[in-house]
């Protein structure tokens, strides 16, 4: 469990570092996906505990042994939103690339003039 939370911190910080320092738009998009993976892992970790069972009402399953379903619902929603955002971002990058001939944000400024 500890290791999972360390992974959350590592992924989020890695993604943030990537977004802040990279000039390459594709790498910035990758940074966002990595950050998002960190947040999603955090949500999933919140819900899980040793020997937890899926939150489905069956005979012989007590509600105390079920994992919390809400974080799962949240992460599903976040995945969908993330997919939409990433898709739009990539399409924007493609259009920028067609016009500027580069995906590096620092070189785009020059082609613009």
């Amino acid at each position, binding site marked *: 469990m500890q290791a999972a939370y360390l992974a959350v911190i590592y992924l*989020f910080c890695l993604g943030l570092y990537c977004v802040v320092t990279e000039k390459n738009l594709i790498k910035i998009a990758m940074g966002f996906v990595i*950050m998002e993976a960190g947040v999603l892992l*955090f949500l999933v970790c919140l819900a899980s505990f040793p020997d937890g069972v899926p939150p489905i009402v069956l005979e012989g399953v007590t509600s105390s042994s079920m994992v919390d379903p809400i974080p799962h619902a*949240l992460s599903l*929603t976040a995945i969908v*939103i993330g997919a939409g955002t990433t898709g*739009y*971002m990539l399409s*924007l990058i493609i*259009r920028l690339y067609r016009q500027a001939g580069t995906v590096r944000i620092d070189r785009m400024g020059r082609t613009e003039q």
Partner: protein
Amino acid sequence: VTHLPILVIIVPLVYAFLVPLLDLVSSRLRTSAAAAVAVTHLVFSIALFIHVFQNGTLEYQLGGWDSEVGIILYIDGLAATFAVMIALGTALVAWYSLDFVREGESKYFLLLYIASAGLSGAVLTGDLFNLYVFIEIIALSGFALVAFRRGFRALMAAMRYMIFTILSSMLILLAIAFVYATMGTLNLGEIAASMHQFDPTVLKVSAGMFLVGVALKLAIVPLHGWLPATYGESSTPVGALLAGVGHKVPLYILIRFLYFFEAAAGEQRLATILLGIGAVTIAFGHFMALGQPDIRRVLGFSSIAHTGYMLVGLGIGTPFALVAVLFHAMNHLIVKLSAFFSVGMLTRGDRERATVLDLQGRGAASPFAGMAFLVSTLALIGIPPLGAFASKWALIMAAIRADHIGFALLMIAGTVVAAVYYGRIGKTLYISTDDLKPDRSWTAEGVLYGSAAVVCAVAFSFALFPAANRILDELMVFII
């Protein structure tokens, strides 16, 4: 009446998805439906406001599930007020867009009304995760709208806007995950009620991330990098939507979660933070606007400065200051919309850039738009008897009553700087290239400094403005 809250969100959303179908029938039908839906949305929002005004806070359970398992909409005076502001703003933008949208561009209306639903939803929801979803809806339609029918520079602006906004969404999502981890609930009311269970360290971390996320969306100064380019490069109605309406949602979130940030930072320290950032934001916004050639960017920087005014008001923290902030937000909404619209009309719609020089002599060519622009800049400066004067004056009074004389002086100084840069634009508007002789412009500058002096005199005279005072008092009772 019982389903009024959800109707406010659903009406624009349903229309948005009907747009492609309506467009198949005829584009006239699509356009007239857009106007009608905007009015309906506004009427429902006003009805909701009246209902809440008469019957008090309203809780609406989505799908009939109660708040323990379901999601609720929570509408108090603050939410209802913002809902009306948003519906009014989006309705105005939609009407302006009727003329702007050409044949075969119906996806513009789709994006606009999805944004409208998201904006309304974000202020009405009583669920933290729902708030995140609505923020993302606004953001996604916003990215697409910024890049709509514009060139390479707008694509760059959309990209930049996107990077800042996704970063802010990630921080907000993580903060929400922290809140859920500690509290086990996402209901805003329950979070407020059980604040004391929070582990102080976790509270500080999550409130910090949340505050940075909101600050990114509000474009508070060190995090403002996306705003000038986004306002400057997007087309007129989109710029108006973002500057006038989109700006109000993060403001609402900031006000709604003030107690949360207070618990995290301590009341005194939060006030210091807000006052400090607000002062820097005012100064930066006004001084950056001074040297801007592009009018939409001037309006963008002035938005940053006005955000600063609102932050200072929140930092002062008295009920009177809070009402002044809300009043100023309303005025800012209306005035920014009219400023963007008149710039759009003066520069004939859709040019890549609208620099101050492009406006030379345009005031005489289109007198109505010229007057509208002049009036809105006068309001942005804060000239009586326009509404923005009353709210700015209320903010300054709030600062003086709370013994923050320095901030009152800063706001007055900001007003003078605003008079200089808007005056420069107003001057160009009525001077054609040929008679740009020094003596003429000297007179114009005389008028300019004269008006600045009048603003100063009025601001210093502390004369009461009775009508505004009465409205403020009544609103104060209702909202707080």
